[in-house]
């Protein structure tokens, strides 16, 4: 493979505390190296910003509910698709883009990795089929465990070893990456049309509480030593006053230390925190509690979070939090899709318009940004929109720009129909902080890579890491005063080199690169009881045969398998 030398760029690499220093980056055989030989192809990056490839810790980009959203929304394609680039696949859809558009748009923004945030295990062959058809960007998927009958039964009985053995088996069977928890217990309750809104609401029949599920899964995760921590979507998402449940859930991690060989420090990753930082006791006095939540997180080293920032678009909400989507449909009366998945989980999908003319939407927008602006450790705060829930991932550049420009935030507040009410219910208008390029690199590169246990591959530009380098046409010494120019530069990278190949030049796709699927093989001691339990449940309760459930290797070509060993 050819050698590349990226010369004279302003490099931002938080893993080595490099903050805009003008230097060269060399790539050989798909990896970053110390220096390049005389025959290296040279790319001049002078006056431009150089970072490693972006890492998205949480997005819904592949699988049954994403596709249910695509199917149910032809209007998301009408006049909103992007004309195909000559020689490449068509790029359809806006809030829930086709797999092809998903891969191309991540590449155009300079992203090297995205985590599919919720894989229903029964549907894992589907998730991998879509990952297979998503070009360029590396992907992994988190199976959901917070409402899984095996897990509920083992944890109810305090059988951490059995839970670990089952989870290890399921990660292998589904080619999954780690432990995702969505509305623990609440989604199983939704099987009967019910929910668990607090940490102490017992799950019908199983008689276990969300608190016990979360604590048990944290313990199991650390017993297995997985690269990523428990990744949680908490109970009571999207409701006024939910910040208390949010903080109570995070408290379950107090005193627990991460155990793994990947350099990960957190034991809980709290996802799309914007949806969980709400005050008030109804929509009438709905307000931001971002400060309360971030103050707690600032003091807890073993917690990371991503924003779930609202982008003020017409989008499509989708989550394994089935009861929430039903509730949301009752508020906006648009179409509603739901899929309950036997023994495992559920999912709901509802279109949503975050309108600047609606007070609540303005407050939600403010909360998403406040979480970042109030945070003191940017290596633990990551940028996301919970794509497509709070907005499509293609709006990340706009979020960077809101964070980097107080002027842009003020313009947006000024455009709201109820700006006074939004300002009164939040503290966004009083926050002067402007996030730096270095901090953007922390929030989108070094931070999420470390939290996922992937810092050896992604997140920085040290020799040995993957040769993922993005060059943005942004001169750090002379940032554009027009926010839209900054956004445009992030939207379409000048260059993006993915594992040593130029995949984007001047914002256009050049190559399909060398896309990989990452998954985790956790090796645990032989466990006959769990083996028997799996066999029995497939005979009695599932409607699919065990042999046809495990994802076959050909569905995940070019795999990158991370091995972990659990000690007996």
């Amino acid at each position: 493979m050819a050698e590349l030398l990226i010369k004279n760029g302003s490099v931002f690499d938080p893993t080595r505390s490099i903050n805009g220093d003008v230097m060269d980056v060399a790539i050989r055989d798909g990896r970053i190296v110390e220096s390049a030989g005389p025959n290296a192809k040279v790319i001049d990056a002078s006056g431009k910003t150089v970072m490693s490839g972006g890492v998205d810790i949480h997005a819904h980009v592949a699988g049954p509910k994403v596709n249910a959203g695509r199917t149910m929304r032809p209007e998301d394609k009408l006049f909103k698709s992007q004309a195909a680039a000559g020689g490449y696949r068509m790029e359809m859809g806006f809030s829930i883009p086709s797999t092809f558009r998903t891969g191309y748009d991540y590449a155009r923004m300079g992203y090297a990795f995205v985590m599919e945030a919720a894989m229903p295990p029964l549907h894992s062959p589907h998730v991998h089929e879509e990952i297979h058809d998503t070009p360029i960007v590396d992907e992994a998927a988190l199976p959901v465990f917070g409402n899984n009958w095996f897990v509920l039964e083992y944890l109810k009985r305090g059988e951490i070893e059995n839970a670990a053995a089952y989870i290890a088996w399921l990660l292998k069977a589904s080619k999954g990456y780690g432990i995702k928890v969505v509305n623990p217990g609440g989604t199983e309750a939704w099987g009967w049309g019910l929910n668990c809104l607090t940490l102490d609401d017992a799950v019908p029949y199983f008689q276990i509480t969300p608190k016990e599920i979360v604590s048990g899964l944290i313990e199991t995760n650390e017993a297995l030593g997985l690269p990523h921590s428990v990744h949680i979507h908490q109970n009571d998402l999207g409701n006024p006053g939910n910040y208390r449940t949010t903080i109570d859930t995070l408290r379950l991690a107090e005193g627990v230390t991460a155990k793994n060989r990947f350099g990960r420090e957190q034991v809980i990753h709290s996802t799309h925190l914007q949806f969980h930082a709400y005050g008030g006791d109804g929509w009438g006095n709905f307000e931001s509690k971002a400060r309360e939540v971030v103050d707690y997180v600032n003091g807890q080293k073993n917690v990371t979070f991503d924003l779930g920032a609202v982008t003020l678009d017409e989008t499509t909400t989708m989550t394994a939090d089935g009861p929430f989507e039903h509730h949301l449909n009752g508020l906006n009366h648009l179409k509603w899709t739901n899929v309950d998945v036997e023994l495992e989980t559920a999912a709901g999908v509802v279109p949503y318009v975050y309108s600047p003319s609606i007070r609540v939407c303005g407050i939600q927008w403010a909360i998403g940004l406040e979480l970042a602006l109030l945070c003191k450790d940017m290596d633990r705060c990551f940028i996301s929109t919970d794509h497509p829930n709070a907005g499509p991932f293609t709006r990340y550049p706009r979020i960077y720009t809101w964070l980097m420009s107080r002027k842009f935030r003020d313009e947006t507040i000024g455009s709201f129909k109820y700006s006074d009410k939004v300002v009164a219910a939040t503290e966004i208008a009083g926050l002067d902080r402007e996030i730096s390029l270095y901090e953007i690199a922390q929030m989108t590169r070094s931070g999420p890579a470390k939290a996922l246990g992937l810092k050896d591959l992604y997140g920085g530009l040290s020799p040995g890491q993957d040769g993922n380098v993005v060059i943005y046409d942004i001169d750090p010494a002379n940032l554009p005063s027009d926010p839209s120019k900054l956004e445009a530069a992030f939207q379409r990278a000048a260059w993006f080199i993915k594992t040593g190949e130029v995949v984007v030049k001047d914002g256009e796709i050049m190559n399909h690169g060398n896309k990989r699927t990452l998954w985790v093989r956790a090796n645990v001691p032989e466990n006959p009881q769990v083996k028997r339990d799996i066999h029995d449940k497939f005979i009695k309760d599932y409607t699919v045969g065990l042999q046809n459930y495990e994802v076959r290797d050909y569905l995940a070509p070019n795999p990158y398998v991370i091995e972990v060993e659990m000690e007996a």
Partner: protein
Amino acid sequence: MPIVKLTPIAQPELCLDCYAISPDALAGLTESGIADLEVWEGKVRWRLGDFFEVSGDAGRTPDETHVVVDGDASRMKYIGYKMTGGMITVNGSADMYLGGWMKGGKIHVTGDVDSFCGIQMEGGEIMVDGRAQNHVGCAYRGDWRGMRGGTLRIRGDAGNDIGTFINGGTIIVEGNAFIHVSTHGEGGTVIIKGDVQGRVGGQMVKGDIFVLGAIQHMLPGFKKVDTIEKEVDGQPYRLDHYVGDLGERHPSSRGQQVLGNLYVRAA
């Protein structure tokens, strides 16, 4: 107003997608520029001039442009696509999507139109002297924002799905209609002067429907509340007033439930 006359000189083998036949696409162009505009037959791109003789230059703006299609356009789709102003006259029939996504201006078709006439129309006027196929003034698939404004008049009969998801504007069918009028309607007015077989106002949240003929099968979700005198399209009528669809959700306004209104000519 400058007139651009398009006289058909050849008929396509397949249907022709004529996004170019609208005042918006023609405005500012001369005869030869108009003849060079693109039309599609499947994946093949042709010039507008391959199918029409073009005479006359367009006005400077859409509002100042009148397009006359002088002959049969029954295999020409998308006439008046997204137009914002000016006029189109079709001396003959037109194919699907006549006046689709239209925002302003006027279209007059002397013959018939195929389906999806006035799909997601937001403003302007459409008048069809003949009959219309299905989906008059309907929403695009999946969109809850159907017709939002303007006036759409069919002087003959129309098929099914009239004003599906209508949010505003007025549809008038002077002849008979088949089934499904204002299904999922949430505003706007639909007037059927002839008879309708059934399914009038199903899943309707709000809006007004007038049927001046008879409804063969009334939906059980509509309840008669009154008989009133009312003027409809300039003529006075005695009408039975029904409210519904009682099976559907309804919003409240100032403590009052807002229902859909269905007025049927009283016996």
